């Protein structure tokens, strides 16, 4: 039997044994990043719903006396946090902190004057509720890929009141 032929025997088995864990690891990483992005989309939608709900805090008396639309700042901020917490609570067990804690730690900015929005960086032309929230998420597959099971997703969004 020639030496070359002998060296090649069993190579397929070595490939299979070495590559299989690598393949599985890559798959785990793909699934982890996928679920992370899915979670970001979900949190973005929840944040949008909270910002939209907070724009209900319009100053109705000012509006009926002919003034331009204004948001009542403390009321809008309280609504934004309340509905952010209510919607975050529907996310499930991937959150690494309670929905109420995450919502109370969120940055909420109510702008009534035109100008550049401090959170989104885009011009506000109408009364706007802007929210930035940092959500700690637990993705077990990320731990498998060596990235730590908890990551923090930061999501920003806003909603404007138009009449």
């Amino acid at each position, binding site marked *: *039997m*020639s030496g070359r*032929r002998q060296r090649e*025997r069993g190579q*397929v088995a070595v490939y*299979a044994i070495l590559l299989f864990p690598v*393949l599985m690891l890559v*798959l785990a990483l793909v*699934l982890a990043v*996928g679920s992370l992005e*899915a979670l970001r*989309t*979900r949190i973005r*939608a*929840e944040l*949008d*719903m909270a910002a*939209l*709900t907070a724009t*209900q805090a319009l100053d109705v008396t000012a509006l009926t006396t002919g003034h331009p639309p204004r948001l009542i700042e403390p009321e809008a901020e309280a*609504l934004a946090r309340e*509905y952010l917490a*209510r*919607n975050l609570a*529907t996310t499930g067990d991937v959150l690494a902190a309670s929905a109420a804690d995450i919502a109370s730690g969120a940055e909420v900015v109510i702008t009534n004057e035109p100008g550049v929005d401090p959170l989104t960086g885009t011009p506000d032309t109408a009364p706007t509720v802007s929210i930035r929230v940092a959500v700690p998420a637990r993705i077990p597959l990320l731990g498998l890929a060596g990235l730590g099971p908890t990551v923090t997703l930061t999501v920003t969004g806003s909603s404007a009141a138009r009449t």
Partner: protein
Amino acid sequence: MMPAPRLGSRHDPRRGQRGVAAVEAVLVVPLVLVPVLLSVVVFGRLEHTRLVLDAAAAAGARQAAVVGADTAAVRTRIDEELRDGGLDPTSVRVTIEPAIADWGDPIRVRVEVGEQASIPFIGSWAVPLSAEFVTRSEVTH
């Protein structure tokens, strides 16, 4: 020097190895590659369903806030979103509570569907998917 044995002859040392790669391919392709590729497709489909549910629940929640109740308008709006996303509305359970929400009260819209994920050679699982949003009624009844 001995003459090299004829390819495939009884004296060819490769004879015992011939076809091994083919046998491995026959085992590996259906048992490993096909399930891996199909699971990518199955997960993609589940993720699509989840996104459609999210969109339907969000649209339904907005409509529910505007009418402040569990009405046909809300359910039609949700069904439209589900159909647009390629889901059968009859297979989706929609919960809107409370049935009547007064101004400033929270109103909750939840959509649920039982999906089936089946990967050949691996198994089949029931995957319950749901989406839920909470918003605030804008009407006084």
